[in-house]
């Protein structure tokens, strides 16, 4: 049973269907793996083994009665600790929500339950999804499965690390500026950030509402497609969720001999600051597609230089308002020192929130405050339009853009914690995608000499998730970097 954990989603789903093993057996294998390695990996914040096994048992009962709910039925899925699951703690990696138990299910959680998925564990993250390394989690720092001294990326750190380390088959993260793609890239798994409005945000704790999107992670494009199939689509509880027709994502990854797309390579994404090993790996991937008959064209996305400033203005402005509700009054941590109402606010927030969160709240407060709004927030909204227009101009010529996901492979723990701005710069290639609301995928395209995974990013036109999945699938069929197993 030990090797069950390294099965791809397709193999596991088929094995369950053919009753080669049960969901309980499969789930127990992942649980055993978690017990064995998570003390050093620290991908899980908490889990409810009894509940999870009960879900697995229920799945097996369904299957034995011929009432399987589909391909996801019985497959263990891990959740970033940002999705509300009724009766489970929902910490967002923050002290201020340490003891909060959600009284309701997020729409994605409800959809996963309805599809028969077995929900295994609550995965570590940077506090309120603010960070790129898990070092902003109030509870623990997750390690990179390929090198325990290094970070797994973030903010969906646990979601990427757990999948890469065989603790769970699939996982769900969130991506506001790269938080699914960047850890996927650093941990050597596939991670998708869908178009804005593709997956309901109801019950997903907000960081920056206009940028946040849930995104699936898996070791294969097929696993990502299977999750997306279940999760995407309209939700009457989320006004920003698109009333879309859900395409057949699974079909997209089963027919790799699809159309030969026109690929754009934006020069700006291969400039200063890009690690040479990352660069050559991504270039190899581009050559692969070219060899497959795709047309490759150089393009320009000159607005890249504004991406990080615009992101940090918009995201922090929204965050300063979204996070105001964590105040020590109704359901969060209340400082025992507080003697009057002002102290309840000031001290509960000061003690309950971490440094990076406070820094971003202060920045967001600043850019919205009287006298600075026009110069910062107002202006950033216009530059956001500029970035969007820039992408649309490129997409008039090409179908898909190819770039590195992260300028560098996984960095050492503590390496960037003292310099917030340096940490922000590691999201350079992923951030514009969120500002423009586009879909993008990161998939493993190689390893460094040290054995660290490298991620290649494909950026698509709005609602072209199928194209991205199909291209990632084509690549992994020829170059199965995603099937390499870390030595843990």
């Amino acid at each position, binding site marked *: 049973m030990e090797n069950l954990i390294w099965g791809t989603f397709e193999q596991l789903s088929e094995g369950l269907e053919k009753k080669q093993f049960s969901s309980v057996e499969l789930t127990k294998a992942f649980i055993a793996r978690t017990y064995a390695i998570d003390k050093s990996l620290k991908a899980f914040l908490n889990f409810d083994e009894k509940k999870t096994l009960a879900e697995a048992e229920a799945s097996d009962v369904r299957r034995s009665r011929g009432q399987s709910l589909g391909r996801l039925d019985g497959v263990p899925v891990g959740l970033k600790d940002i999705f509300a699951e009724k009766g489970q703690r929902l910490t967002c990696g923050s002290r201020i929500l340490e*003891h909060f138990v959600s009284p309701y299910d997020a729409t994605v959680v409800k959809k996963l339950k309805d599809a028969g998925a077995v929900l295994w564990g609550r995965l570590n993250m940077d506090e309120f999804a603010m960070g790129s390394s898990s070092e902003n989690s109030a509870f623990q720092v997750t390690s990179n499965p390929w090198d325990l001294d290094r970070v797994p990326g973030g903010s969906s750190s646990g979601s990427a690390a757990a999948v890469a380390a065989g603790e769970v088959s699939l996982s769900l993260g969130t991506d506001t500026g790269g938080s699914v793609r960047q850890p996927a890239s650093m941990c050597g798994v596939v991670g998708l950030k869908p178009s804005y409005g593709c997956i309901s945000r109801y019950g997903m704790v907000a960081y920056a509402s206009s940028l946040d999107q849930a995104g699936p992670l898996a070791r294969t494009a097929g696993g990502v497609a299977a999750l997306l199939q279940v999760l995407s689509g309209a939700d009457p509880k989320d006004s920003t969720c698109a009333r879309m027709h859900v395409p057949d994502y699974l079909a997209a990854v089963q027919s790799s001999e699809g159309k030969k797309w026109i690929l754009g390579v934006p020069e700006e994404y291969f400039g200063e600051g890009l690690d040479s090993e990352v660069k050559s790996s991504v270039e190899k991937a581009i050559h692969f597609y070219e060899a497959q008959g795709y047309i490759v064209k150089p393009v320009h996305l000159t607005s890249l230089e504004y991406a990080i400033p*615009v992101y940090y203005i918009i995201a922090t402005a929204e965050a300063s308002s979204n996070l105001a509700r964590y105040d*020590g009054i*109704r359901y969060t941590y209340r400082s025992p020192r507080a003697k*009057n*109402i002002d102290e309840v*606010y*000031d001290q509960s927030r000061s003690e309950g929130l971490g440094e990076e969160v406070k*820094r971003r709240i202060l920045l967001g407060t600043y850019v919205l405050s009287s006298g600075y709004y026009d110069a910062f927030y107002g202006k950033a909204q*216009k530059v956001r339009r500029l970035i969007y227009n820039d992408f649309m101009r490129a997409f008039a010529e090409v179908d898909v853009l190819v770039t590195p996901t992260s300028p560098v492979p996984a960095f050492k723990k503590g390496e960037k914690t003292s310099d917030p701005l340096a940490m922000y710069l590691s999201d350079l290639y992923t951030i514009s995608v969120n500002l423009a609301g586009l879909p993008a995928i990161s998939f493993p395209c190689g390893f460094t000499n040290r054995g660290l995974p490298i991620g290649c990013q494909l950026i698509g036109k709005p609602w072209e998730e199928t194209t991205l999945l199909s291209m990632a699938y084509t690549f992994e069929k020829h170059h199965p970097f995603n099937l390499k197993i870390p030595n843990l």
Partner: protein
Amino acid sequence: MMHSEIDIDHLAKLARIELDGHKRETFLNQLQDIVGYCSKVCEAGVENLEPRVHSFSHEGNFWAEDIPEYPEDGVDFLSRNAPEMKEKQIVVPRVL
């Protein structure tokens, strides 16, 4: 860069975050760096561009019919996580 004056105490008051002396200095320096970096947006030529606030593009309204749903759990909904409650109400040190 413009707007380098940051009134950190005013911001902390608006955001309701207590900052002690040491942290106040660190935050102020970091914020000055970040704000300086973010001032780059001021250089962008965007005079004729409409702001882009959302990434969605709905046709028509997104709204619900006025049909009430009585919450299942009522007070329990709140009491489970409340830091302090008395007689079904949240209590705080006196306001005003």
